[in-house]
């Protein structure tokens, strides 16, 4: 049995310690917001937060997550109201939407560590997330907007 803390809930899962966190979260816990895209840490569809870092769950063994705090897209905010989510909605970023759990989870780390990201900062943070629909121009726009929203919230 492995004990996991996911979205502030504790779970006991009976899986191989080698199983990637992605499949534990998706198949065992039924939290399907975290997506399978490539399986080799190339695309970023599977990004979730492990102790606040934008970890790629497809190559992260569940054993690494023991004793750590896991946040998936389902647990990023209570009401779809993380600044990234609000900005994504305002800009209508997603097309098919499949990659955007990962995009948003990556953007959330950027926005936390750099409240006023420049285009270059956005490049540095988001170049690991692939979008086949080509929503990149809107991802960029939405991150700038999210930064503004976040700033306003603080005031």
């Amino acid at each position: 049995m492995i004990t996991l803390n996911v979205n502030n809930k504790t779970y006991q899962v009976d899986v191989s310690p080698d199983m990637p966190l992605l499949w534990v979260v998706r198949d065992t816990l039924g939290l399907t917001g975290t997506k399978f895209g490539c399986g080799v840490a190339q695309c970023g569809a599977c990004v979730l937060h492990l102790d606040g870092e934008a970890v790629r769950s497809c190559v992260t063994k569940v054993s690494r997550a023991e004793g750590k705090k896991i946040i998936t897209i389902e647990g990023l905010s209570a009401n779809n109201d993380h600044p990234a989510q609000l900005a994504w909605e305002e800009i209508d970023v997603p097309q098919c939407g499949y990659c955007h759990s990962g995009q948003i989870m990556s953007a959330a780390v950027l926005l936390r560590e750099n409240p006023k990201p420049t285009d270059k900062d956005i490049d540095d943070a988001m170049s690991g997330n692939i979008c086949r629909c080509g929503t990149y121009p809107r991802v960029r726009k939405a991150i700038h907007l999210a930064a503004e929203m976040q700033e306003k919230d603080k005031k």
Partner: protein
Amino acid sequence: MDSKNNIDNTRRSFLKLTGLGGAALCMGFYLPSDAAVTLIKPSDLTAADIEMCAWILINTSGKVTLVSHRAEMGQGAYHSIPQIIAEELEVNLKDIDVIFAQGNEKKYGNQITGGSSTIRSSYKRLLQLSATAREMLITAAALQWKVSVNDCYAEAGHVIHRPSAKKMHYGELVLQASKLEAPKNPKLKKISEYKLIRQPLHRLDTPMKLNGSAIFGLDKKIPGMLYAAVERNPRLRGKVKSFDDSEAKKIPGVKNIFVVKMMVHNTIREGIAVVADSTWAALEGKKALRVTWDDTGFEHVNSLEIFKRQEDFLKIKEGLPLKSQGNPTAIIEKSKKKVDVIYQTPYQSHSCMEPLNCIAHFQGDKIEIWGPIQAPGWVQDFISTQMGIAKDKVIVNMTFLGGGFGRKAFTDYPHEAVLISKEIGAPVQVVWSREDDLKQGPYRPGISYRCEGVVSEGKIEALKFRMAGQNNDHWSGGKKDVPNDSTSEGFLEPYYASIKNLSISDVPFETPLPTMWWRSVYASTNGFAYESFMDEMAVEAGKDPLDFRRTHLQDKRCQKLIDKMEEVSGWKKRNKNEGYGVAITECFKSTVGHIVKVSKNISGGVKIDKVWAVMDCGWYVNPDIIRAQVEGSIVMGLGAATIHEITFKDGKVEQNNFYDYPMPRITDIPPIEVYIIENEEDAGGVGEPALPPFAPALTNAIFDLTGKRIRKLPFSLATV
């Protein structure tokens, strides 16, 4: 909009969603593919029939349910159809629930979400249908109030009596309304009267795509469901000679391992299915298999040979003419100043972000399927035929699609899932790894074009195009003695009027490689060859490439498009050291022009500074969705032009995953400006037409900057 969006249109949840408890208190409309709107009266129906007959339902609480007959794969059908309905029905957009229809072509007509056809093929019916319902609800209220219909109007889900300001909710009127005769010619709004249509409204599916609640195929779960992964023949056909599953069986969770024979077009692709209790165990089991394949009896192709053979054909074969006017061959043969060149475009993978997957539950006399499916009707037909089960016993459910681009309009992966479910006697989700998705095709066919032309007095005197590449239709029984009718796809109609001597021919070319539509289909490759060659002709004629097109495209809409392109891009005001390229193509009844601006990169090669896109798609619904589709098409076109190439060696695909079939990333994307031409023409497609002009506009810009003509894709921007 109900944010509970687990799109699950099993009967029970359907009835729950629409508030039907067995009694038929709703309005439904039956829409045989081309017939007029027909009202279904409750008396004609049993409760069970309703879901099979309705496209739009209004229940007694006033909730509107749209049964979307088309897939949502990013292109916006989930939103655009309700935006049309809300306009003429006079309801709030948020009061429309959307559920995905099951496969049923008798009812919905063609359900293939392809050819950028969702809006253009159904908007008139949707407007008509919504206006019909609105008028019936108004009539029902007027009858109840005993007032003139002319004094009543509808707004935000209510009928209002203007003089008295009396107001009734649609839900209170549906029962009465459903007893009325449907008006034959309901009054439709003029474009200038639209309140919702043509507005950049926020997409209904956006919120659920931001918190993990949108259910894609891979997210769907069925009670008792197992998982399967399949090791398929890497040469894309051929048989299993033998396999060793001793290591695979040792993996905890692996349950069954057996041979599965999936139909791909008209060929069988054998594979070894590993069924397990988790996706991970199935994928690990598949990796542990040792399979020996019997690959005799078909050609093992190599990419270089394919293109060599195409070139050889084009040297000697005239091909089957699709378009022919005047006598281009004679003029070209006579001319001392002809241009005669070969263009080439590679095989390409769709590579949707959501790898292929499908759930099937074989239940003896009935099969139910759930998955990211672009063509539920075809899947229903195909499975019915293959499995010998009546069509109405094959239930095909669509989920959200994590990308489609043509690949998910195919029947192979549902078929394989059905075979596996039958074998194990349980519901199963078959998951394709990224490698499976990339290495198993079908692909956009690789094509060579021979383009010949002669100019005279600043205009094209003769033009001759020949295409040698696989015909997708041949896989579905298309005749081999007729030209591929897509050989001219992408080429603008008005060229036929201005170029008197012109021929476009298909030089038939076959390989054993399975091919399939890929976003914008043959326009994506034709566009590159034909619009690049148009640039060569302009250079040959000593004309500005944009003016050259203006001269040859004597059509009002084209002229307007070209004017707009010139205006927004500053084409004539360009500076030294800037390369500008133009290309215009037609695709699925929309015309799109791109202008690309490039400059030399300090670190070598060329960089794209800007892309301007002008789309003329006629009547349209949501300008922001159009802009998104154009942006996305350009990004996909950028990958197709500068990165992507599926290559074959000894019959096997050489690429594996995103590390050797890399996608453009956020760092690669130039600024894009999108403009939409306003007019009242018939609606054209939106999801695909902006892709074809990108590659030629880019390479034409590179020619403008460097004098280097790129005739083979992909090419590297870094080493131009």
